[in-house]
């Protein structure tokens, strides 16, 4: 990783570990695949074309897991009339990864309309994935009409309150948060007082060196508040995570990959397995974006995350379904 490599950060005006050019590149990579490695709080990002030059130590870790998001099972509009087919394609992609993932995270919008048969279909398709453990957080489409009751019955065993929970894997601490309940008129995603108190308590006794991975549906950073792409009280949650050397935040909701680094925190959003949404402000609304059928799989995808113990680095690799 020579410091002069052309894909590394060149101008860090905001001292947030990412320059404008780097940000635009990450944006441009949406749907084409990118690898971002965080080391010592600084994001180093490389296009997938450079992967062959990198050692396997940098891209493969002791813990590997996959994030999938926004399956929207039940959606049948022109933007993708076959969301079951593209979810199956995502499973094929996952099963073909060189480092077999230990588990999957699903960052919400499993279903499109919270219908039991939609959840059933996703469960059935994911059974053919090599990693059998799936950790879920709800999207707003999963908690329609019943305040999340069905979601909690299906996926919330052992969770607290509205479905939040944490677990440990190989020295890393994973926290699943819920920010799609009790949304207020005019507002953004919300964590709420009860969940924030739980979070503060959950991380209180962890060592500062523990790598922390937070996953939730709506981005925990302000991607584009005009479209509701942010979480009202995420700053409070992040304040509790300040003491940690390495925090990785994985979100969905916006149906495109995007990333940002702020101090010790790397934020990353995953592509959808169902349909793409426009870049912030590039359309009248964030509704489903219709692309030519032959291009659809190039704007859908999965996210593969590798953690190398002792390196304080999580490598996040987005791959399209194409």
């Amino acid at each position, binding site marked *: 990783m020579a410091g002069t490599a052309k894909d590394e950060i060149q101008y860090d005006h905001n001292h947030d570990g990412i320059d404008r050019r780097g940000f635009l590149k990450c944006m441009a990579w949406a749907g084409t695949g990118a690898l971002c490695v965080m080391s010592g709080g600084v994001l180093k990002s490389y296009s997938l074309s450079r992967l062959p030059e990198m050692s396997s130590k940098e891209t493969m870790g002791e813990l590997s897991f996959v994030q999938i998001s926004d399956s929207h099972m039940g959606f049948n509009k*022109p933007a993708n009339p076959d969301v079951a087919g593209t979810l199956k394609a995502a499973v094929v992609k996952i099963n073909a990864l060189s480092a077999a993932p230990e588990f999957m995270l699903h960052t919400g919008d499993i279903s499109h309309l919270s219908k039991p048969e939609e959840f059933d279909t996703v469960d059935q398709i994911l059974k053919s994935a090599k990693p059998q453990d799936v950790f879920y957080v709800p999207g707003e489409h999963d908690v*329609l*009409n019943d305040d999340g009751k069905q979601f909690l019955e299906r996926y919330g065993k052992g969770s607290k309150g509205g479905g939040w929970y944490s677990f440990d894997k190989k020295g890393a601490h994973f926290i699943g948060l819920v920010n799609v309940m009790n*949304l207020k008129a005019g507002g953004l995603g919300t964590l709420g007082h009860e969940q924030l108190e739980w979070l503060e308590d959950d991380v209180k006794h962890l060592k500062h060196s523990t790598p922390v991975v937070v996953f939730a549906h709506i981005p925990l950073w302000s991607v584009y508040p005009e479209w509701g792409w942010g979480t009202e009280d995420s700053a409070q949650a992040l304040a509790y995570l300040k003491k940690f050397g390495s925090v990785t935040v994985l979100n969905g909701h916006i149906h495109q990959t995007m990333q940002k680094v702020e101090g010790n925190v790397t934020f990353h959003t995953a592509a959808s397995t169902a349909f793409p949404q426009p870049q912030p402000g590039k359309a009248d609304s964030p509704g489903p974006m219709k692309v030519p059928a032959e291009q659809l799989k190039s704007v859908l995808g999965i996210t593969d995350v590798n953690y190398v113990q002792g390196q304080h680095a999580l490598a996040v690799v987005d791959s399209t379904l194409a």
Partner: protein
Amino acid sequence: MRRSVSIAVLTMTLVVGLGAIGIGQRSVLASAQQKAETTEVKIDNFSFGPGTLTVPAGTTVTWTNRDDIPHTVVSTDGVFKSKVLDTDEKFSFTFSKTGTYPYFCSIHPKMTGKVIVQ
């Protein structure tokens, strides 16, 4: 068509003028009766149109979701609440009492609107 537009403009001017000198009550009602024909709110591109709808008491307002994404119509004060509306699905509510009724989409809370009942 041109004539009705100019009458509406004239009425608006009249309402503003009378309102300014404090005897606008009757004229406000007259203008509300003219607008009462609009009882449809369309949901397009993640917004309610019209965003503010003024109707006389007793009017039934119908919302139609014309987006490819589901939305809801939920009163901020808990007065009414639709089930989730998929594409082309509708929700109706009859406003019997005067007042201002702010509402939003509980799935996409940036989407807000209000119904003024006079």
